C-alpha cells in the first residue's frame, strides 16, 4: 500500500459526518444475524462498541485479559469527560471544542475526525445519563461541570474523582444486557496473540485462554482492536499493570500501519517516584489544578535546604516562592495544557529547584484555596469577623468535599498530610496518542480490521487535552464504529461463516505456539521484569520528556541489543499449559522491545517539537516547542518490515481547511 487514503468525506466540516452516514452502506437486519464481529478489549471503547454492535444484531465476541470486563484500565480515569453542551452558558460550542482539541494537539490530528468527536460529544452525556451513570449534580438537580487544562470554558462532566469507573460501569452494563440477550459472548481471561488475515482481510484472531493455557482460534467477518495504549513501554507509568501493546503490535506485524508511536503524553501532576521498588506511578487528577497553585522556591539555597531536609516548603515566605506557571503563562496560569506544564516542571527541576530528595518534584499548594474558600464560607455562615485560622479550617472542609478521596490517596501513598503541607508532584508517562493508523471509518490498513479508543491514533494529535480520551473511547464505540463498520460488512453478507480450518489459521496458531515455546526455552538468566525495567529506563532517559538526535540513536541501538539479550536469556518459570503470569508478561515485554525501537526511530525522524514530542534541537529562545509545519505536518504511519529500524515510513499529509495553523500560545 503506497498511498494512505484517509477517506475523509467531501463537503463542509459541519456536514461531513451527517452526509457520510447518509451515504454509507447499511446491512439488512436479517443479514446482521449472519455476521460475526470480534472485539478485542472491553474498556470504554471496546465495551461500548460491543454492546452497540450486539444491539444492532451482529454476533459479537469480546476478549479481555482481565477476569471481568469491568476491570479494564478505563476504570481508573479520575477527572472527567468533555462535551460541548454549553450548559454553563460560557460560550461553548462544537466548534470551540473542536478548535481547542486541534490546537491542544498542536495541529497534528485530522480535522474531520476531531470535528466529529466534538459533534457527537453531547450524545455521549445523554446516553450515559439514560444508562444510569451518576454524574455530579448541582443543587438544582442539573449536571455540574468543571474545567480542565488548555481550555477557558467549563465543559467537563464528572463523577467525583471516579469518572472513568462510572462510565465504564455504564458501558459494562450495556454490554451485560447484550450478554443476557445472547448477542454478545464474553471471553474473559483471554489474550489475543495474533491476527489472522485471509486474502488480505482480517478474518479472526488467535487467543490464549489464560487459565488453561489453551490456544484457540476464533473466526469473524471483522475484528475491532480496542486494546488501549502502550504507556507501559516506560515500565513506570500511570497505566494499569496489565496495559500493553500486544494486540495492536501483532496486528501491526500482520500489516497494519502504526502511526506516530513517539507521541506520548506526560501528565504533570503525579506522585513522584520514591524508590527502586516502585511498580507504577499514581496520578493526582488534573482537576486539582483548578484550585492548586504550582511553585518551587525562588532561591536555589532554599531548594537545597529543602532537599537536605533542613527546611520545609510551608516555611518559605510568599515572596520567595516562584509560581512559575503563573509567571510564564499569565492567561492560563496553572491550567496550561499538560505538555506545557510538564516541561515547565522539568525545566525548574533541571535548573536545580526540585523539592524532594531526588530533586524531581515541585509543589502543588492549596493554601490560597483554603483561604479563598474559607473566607466565602465564613461570610455565608454569618461569621463576619472570622480569624484567619477559622477561615482556613472552613476552607479545608470545602476542599475536602471537592477532592477528599484524592487527598486521602495522596496521604496513603506518600505518608504526608496534604491538608497541612503542600503536595509534591512530578510528571509521569500517562497516555499514548500514537497507535494503529485508521481512516475516517476507523479501519486500519488491513481491510476488516478496525481500531478504536486509545489503540488508534486518530483524534488527539501530538498532545491530548484532559478529559478527551474518555470522550474519544465512547464516541468511537457508541456512535462512530457501529455505523462505519456496516459500510464494510455490507459487502460481507454473502461470505458465510468464517471457517477456522484454513491454512492461514493453522499458520497463525503454529507461529504463536512457536513463540511461546521459544520464550519458555530461553536460557533463563533474568526475569521478565529485569528486562522491562531496563527498557523503561532507556525510554525515560532518552525518549522521555525531551529528546535529542544523539540520545535517540543510542536508544535504538541499546533497545535492539536488549531485545537480543531478552530472547536469548529471559527466564520464564512454570509451564505454558496453566495460568502463568510470567509467560503473559514475557509475551508483552517482547512486543514492547520492538515497539520501543520504532518509537525512538519515529522520534528521531521528526525534526521538530510538537505537543508531547519535544526535540531539544527545536525550541524558541524562551524554551517553547518549535513546530515545523512546512516539513512535518503529516501523520507518520510505519509499515512493518521485520526489524523495527527497517520499518517503512508512509506519510498522511494533514490538510487544514478550517483552522489556521498558529503557534500554540497560552501566555
Amino acid at each position, binding site marked *: 500500500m503506497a498511498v494512505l487514503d484517509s477517506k475523509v468525506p467531501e463537503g463542509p466540516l459541519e456536514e461531513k459526518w451527517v452526509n457520510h452516514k447518509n451515504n454509507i452502506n447499511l446491512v439488512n437486519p436479517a443479514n446482521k444475524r449472519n455476521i460475526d464481529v470480534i472485539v478485542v478489549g472491553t474498556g470504554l471503547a471496546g465495551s461500548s462498541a460491543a454492546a452497540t454492535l450486539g*444491539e444492532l444484531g451482529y454476533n459479537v465476541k469480546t476478549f479481555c485479559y*482481565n*477476569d*471481568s470486563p*469491568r*476491570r479494564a*484500565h478505563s*476504570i*481508573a480515569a479520575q477527572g472527567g469527560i468533555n462535551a460541548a453542551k454549553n*450548559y454553563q452558558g460560557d460560550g461553548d460550542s462544537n466548534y470551540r471544542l473542536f478548535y481547542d482539541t486541534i490546537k491542544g494537539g498542536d495541529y497534528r490530528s485530522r480535522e474531520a475526525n476531531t470535528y466529529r468527536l466534538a459533534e457527537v460529544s453531547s450524545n455521549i*452525556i*445523554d446516553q*450515559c*445519563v*439514560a*444508562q*444510569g451513570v*451518576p*454524574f*455530579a*449534580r*448541582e443543587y*438544582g*438537580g*442539573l*449536571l455540574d461541570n468543571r474545567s480542565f487544562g488548555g481550555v477557558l470554558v467549563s465543559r467537563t462532566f464528572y*463523577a*467525583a474523582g*471516579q469518572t472513568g*469507573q462510572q462510565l465504564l*460501569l455504564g458501558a*459494562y*452494563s*450495556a454490554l*451485560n*444486557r447484550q*450478554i*443476557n440477550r445472547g448477542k454478545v459472548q464474553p471471553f*474473559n481471561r483471554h489474550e489475543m496473540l495474533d491476527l489472522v488475515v485471509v486474502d488480505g482481510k482480517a478474518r479472526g484472531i488467535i487467543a490464549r485462554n489464560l*487459565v488453561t493455557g489453551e490456544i484457540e482460534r476464533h473466526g469473524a467477518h471483522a475484528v475491532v482492536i480496542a486494546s488501549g495504549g502502550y504507556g507501559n513501554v516506560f515500565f513506570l507509568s500511570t497505566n*494499569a*499493570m*496489565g496495559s500493553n501493546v500486544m494486540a495492536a503490535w501483532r496486528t501491526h506485524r500482520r500489516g497494519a500501519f502504526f502511526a506516530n508511536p513517539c507521541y506520548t503524553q506526560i501528565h504533570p501532576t503525579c506522585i513522584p517516584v*520514591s*524508590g527502586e*521498588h516502585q*511498580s*507504577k506511578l*499514581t496520578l493526582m487528577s488534573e482537576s486539582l489544578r483548578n484550585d492548586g497553585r504550582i511553585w518551587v522556591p525562588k532561591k536555589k539555597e532554599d531548594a537545597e535546604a529543602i532537599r537536605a531536609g533542613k527546611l520545609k516548603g510551608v516555611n518559605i515566605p510568599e515572596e520567595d516562592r516562584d509560581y512559575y506557571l503563573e509567571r510564564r503563562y499569565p492567561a492560563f496560569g496553572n491550567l496550561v495544557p499538560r505538555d506545557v506544564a510538564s516541561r515547565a516542571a522539568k525545566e525548574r527541576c533541571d535548573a536545580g529547584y526540585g523539592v524532594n530528595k531526588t530533586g524531581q518534584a515541585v509543589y502543588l499548594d492549596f493554601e490560597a484555596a483554603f483561604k479563598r474558600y474559607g473566607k466565602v464560607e465564613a461570610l455565608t455562615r454569618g461569621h463576619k469577623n472570622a480569624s484567619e485560622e477559622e477561615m482556613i479550617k472552613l476552607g479545608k472542609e470545602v476542599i475536602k468535599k471537592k477532592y477528599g478521596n484524592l487527598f486521602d*490517596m495522596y496521604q*496513603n501513598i506518600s*505518608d504526608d498530610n496534604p491538608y497541612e503541607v503542600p503536595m509534591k508532584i512530578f510528571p509521569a508517562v500517562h497516555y499514548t496518542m500514537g497507535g494503529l493508523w485508521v481512516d475516517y471509518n476507523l479501519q486500519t490498513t488491513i481491510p476488516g480490521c478496525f481500531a478504536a479508543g486509545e489503540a488508534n491514533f486518530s483524534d488527539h494529535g501530538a498532545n491530548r487535552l484532559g478529559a478527551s480520551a474518555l470522550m474519544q473511547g465512547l464516541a468511537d464505540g*457508541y456512535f462512530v464504529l457501529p455505523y462505519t463498520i456496516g459500510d464494510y460488512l455490507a459487502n460481507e453478507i454473502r461470505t458465510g461463516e468464517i471457517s477456522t480450518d484454513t491454512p492461514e489459521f493453522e499458520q497463525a496458531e503454529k507461529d504463536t505456539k512457536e513463540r511461546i515455546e521459544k520464550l519458555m526455552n530461553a536460557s*533463563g538468566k533474568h*526475569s521478565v521484569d529485569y528486562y522491562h525495567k531496563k527498557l523503561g529506563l532507556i525510554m525515560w532517559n532518552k525518549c522521555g520528556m525531551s529528546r535529542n538526535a544523539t540520545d535517540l540513536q543510542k536508544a535504538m541501538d541499546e533497545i535492539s541489543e536488549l531485545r537480543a539479550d531478552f530472547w536469548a536469556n529471559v527466564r520464564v*518459570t512454570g509451564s505454558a499449559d*496453566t*495460568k502463568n*503470569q*510470567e509467560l503473559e508478561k514475557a509475551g508483552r515485554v517482547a512486543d514492547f522491545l520492538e515497539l520501543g525501537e520504532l518509537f525512538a526511530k519515529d522520534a528521531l525522524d521528526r525534526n521538530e517539537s510538537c505537543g508531547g514530542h519535544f526535540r531539544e534541537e527545536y525550541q524558541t529562545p524562551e524554551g517553547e516547542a518549535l513546530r515545523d509545519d512546512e516539513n512535518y505536518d503529516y501523520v507518520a504511519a510505519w509499515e512493518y518490515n521485520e526489524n523495527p529500524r527497517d520499518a517503512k515510513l508512509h506519510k498522511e499529509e494533514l490538510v487544514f481547511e478550517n483552522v489556521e495553523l498558529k503557534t500554540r500560545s497560552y501566555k
Partner: protein
Amino acid sequence: MKLNLKIWRQEGPNVKGKLVDYPLDGVDGDMSFLEMMDILNEELINKGDVPVEFDHDCREGICGSCNMMINGEPHGPQKLTTTCQLHMRKFNDGDTITIEPWRAKAFPVVKDLIVDRSAFDRIQQAGGYISVNTSGNTQDANATPIEKEKADEAFWSATCIGCGACVAACKNASAMLFTSAKISQYALLPQGELEATQRVEAMVRQMDEEGFGNCSNTGACMVECPKGIKLENIARMNREYLKAEVVG
C-alpha cells in the same frame, strides 16, 4: 524490615493447596503490599521457583482486581483500603503475615491467591442495567433533573469495585452487599425505576443460584468493604424485593 510470610499455594482448582513459609528481607515501609509481593516473586524467580500468582491491575484502589486475605482480614488491617493501597509501613519488623485467597463456594480458587469471581458478572448480567438502546437518540441529559442528595447517594452505591471482600468477610459468604449496591444505584435514579421490579427479582435469583449464602445481618461485609458501601443498601434491596413480591 524482615518478614515471615505464610502464603497459600495451590496449583489449580482440583489440586489440594497448602500454606508455605517464605522469609523475606529488605522490605521498605514505602512499598505497597503488592510491591512487597513483587520482590518476593523476583526472589523466587531468581531461585528458579515458580512465583506466587495474584490478581492485580490498576494498583490505584479502583479496579477491584487485587484480593487477598491478610492475617484473616480481606485486604489486610487498614480500613477502607484495597491491598494495592495498603503500605508496608503498617507492619513491623519481624511480623509473620498469613496470606490466603478469598474463601467462598461461589469463588473457586483458580491458582494460588487467584479466585474466580465471574459469579458477580452473572448477577449483573441477570438484570443489573437499564434497558436503554445505545443509539444516541436518548433525551437531553438535563431533561430530568435529579435531586442532588439522591444523585449523590446513587453515586456512592455505584462506587462498589466488585472486589468480593464482602463475600470473603461474611461467615455465610453472602453477596448481599455487592448485589444491593447495584440495585440501590438504579432504584435511586428515575431512569432505573421502571424496571426496578424485574431487576431486583432477577438479580436476587441469580445470586442464590450462584451459591452465595444468606445474610444474617452481622455486618462484617461493611466493616471490610474498601469502598465503605453501606448496609442501608441491603435494607433498600430488601424493601425493593418485598415490593416486587407484592406487585409480582
